[in-house]
């Protein structure tokens, strides 16, 4: 396996008594899309700022492409594109002027900058408005302009903080497509969000944040396996109570939750509908309904925090 592009060890940030990030160990491989998931205030943005070297960690280290963001912030920031949470631009300047400023800060010369700006604005679908003041832009356009900026500086890593918050569904969908485009370009993406289904749609791996700690990490399948025991759900309506034991003995079923009126919710690690049907009918039950769904990250998330609250 190649060296990780982002690696943190015991990364910790305290603001007075408040621990924003607590002993974070994170590894991102080149080319993957990683989602930081968690409620607001769980330390996602602080983690991002430490990776960029914009905030000093209280303890622990971070490495980005082999550089320490504290000692070599310029090297890191040259290679990492950052789209902050609700990104802002200079409203009175046009999109082109805004990007030209960024280009100059990155040491890109004027002619090259103009060529790159046309290229990325084309890709972001902003070509027609490139000479309009950003003040007239919608939120979705600003987000795309921010992503264009990341592309323009030819970042190897893109860090996107809550990129789809406040976008209408269509714009969000479009934006997610653009994030997939980054992956196709070989750019490593670190994405933070609390919008689970969107994370599920684009991320290869996710890390679940809670009170500054990354409590779960892995691919979506691995997470649902861990939290729910399986990534499939089967609804059974048999018009008979007391079938828990029978259903629980079906191979692949991890958990059975009875619901009133002879209904059961099964969680399973694989699709075992036919076996369930056979057993219900064999036991003389009336099988009225047998539906099947894949669980979503929402379920994993909800279940996890439900259990965590129960323990507390």
């Amino acid at each position, binding site marked *: 396996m190649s060296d990780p592009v982002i690696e943190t060890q015991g990364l910790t940030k305290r603001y007075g008594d408040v621990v924003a990030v607590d002993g974070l160990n994170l590894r991102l491989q080149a080319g993957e899309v990683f989602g930081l998931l968690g409620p607001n205030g769980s330390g996602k943005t*602080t983690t991002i*700022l430490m990776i960029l070297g*914009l905030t000093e960690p209280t303890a622990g280290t971070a490495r980005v492409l082999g550089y320490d963001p504290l*000692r070599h912030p*310029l090297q890191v*920031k040259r290679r990492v594109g950052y789209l*902050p949470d609700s990104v802002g631009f200079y409203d009175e300047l046009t999109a082109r002027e805004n990007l030209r400023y960024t280009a100059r800060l990155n040491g890109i010369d004027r002619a090259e900058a103009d060529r790159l700006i046309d290229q990325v604005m084309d890709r972001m679908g902003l070509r027609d408005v490139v000479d309009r003041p950003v003040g007239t832009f919608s939120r979705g356009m600003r987000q795309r302009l921010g992503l264009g900026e990341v592309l323009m500086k030819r970042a190897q890593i893109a860090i996107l903080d809550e990129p789809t918050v406040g976008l209408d569904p269509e714009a969000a969908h479009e934006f997610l497509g653009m994030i997939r485009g980054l992956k196709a370009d070989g750019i490593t993406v670190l994405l933070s969000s609390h919008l689970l289904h969107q994370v599920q749609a684009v991320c290869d791996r996710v890390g679940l944040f809670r009170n500054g700690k990354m409590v779960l990490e892995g691919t979506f399948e691995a997470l649902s396996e861990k939290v729910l025991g399986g990534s499939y759900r089967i609804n059974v309506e048999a018009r008979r109570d007391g079938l828990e034991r029978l259903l629980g003995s079906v191979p692949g079923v991890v958990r059975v939750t009875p619901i009133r009126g002879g209904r059961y919710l099964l969680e399973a690690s694989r699709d075992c509908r036919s076996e369930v049907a056979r057993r219900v009918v064999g036991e003389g039950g009336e099988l009225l309904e047998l539906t099947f769904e894949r669980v979503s990250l929402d379920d994993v998330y909800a279940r996890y925090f439900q259990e965590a609250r129960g323990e507390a």
Partner: protein
Amino acid sequence: MKREGSPWTGLWAVVLKEYADHLSSVRMRILEGLILVVAVATVYAAAQSLRQTVGEDPFIYLKLLTTSQDPLPSFVAFMGFLIPLTGIALAFDAVNGEYNRRTMSRLLAQPIYRDAVLMGKFLAGLLTMATTLLGLWLLVTGLGILRLGVIPEAREVGRGLFFLLATLAYGGVWMALAMLFSVTYRQPATSAMATLAVWLFFAVFWEIVVRLLSNVAALVLMRGGTENELALIQIQLFLSRLSPNTLYSETVLALLNPDVRALGPVLITQLEGAVRGTMLPLWQSLVLAWPQFTALIAAVILLFAYAYILFQRQEVRA
């Protein structure tokens, strides 16, 4: 811990962007318009009264700046008001404005240090003020040539340029203070009001405070002759010079009036052998104004350094 790379990376990019912003901002256009009107009015009025004595005065172009014609105060007096305002207008939202527009984190995520941001903004402000002042001075001189019909001499030009430098330093004090408040307060309106409050305090109330304090001192030093009286004046002068306004007006007084020989009390014995009515050469006037001039520059540096330290330590998150 040692950082790699120059803290000035990207400095020019910031300076040029901010300079362009200032020159095209509505705020600066309003102020420049105001200054222009004031300059033309005061200088025109001064020229009107100076026309009678053109031949007699060797420093007529300096008189153009300092002569007041009822009901208008002199050009210099007006500048004492308008320059602090310009300085404040240029910097009161320098840092908190970036936060409010949510551009700060994006800006700092570019390969530059924070040093370049603050320094760039300050230099751009100074550059804007210098441009305005130079343009203004050329305009005034041009108006003088038209109205008075004489060409300014080198010594007048020299004094004029030093006057510009002193004015720049004075404006720099208020700009640095506004920048400091723009780092400490998150609302531009708050930082603007705070800076204006400090300015008003020094412009209006400081003289009153000085008078009150020297009255107290007078009670203590009541008995005794000339020496105590002199000590009292010294105390009063010292207190008064804690205000940048006093420092500026004394610097300007020395630079624009070659016949001014002292900025403090002069004893009659010190005047022994002095040739009355003679003018000091430029470098002697400079020596006279030097403490005040350097104090102004020191104030700029101190205020800016403090803003710099606060900004470096500030968390990027609101």
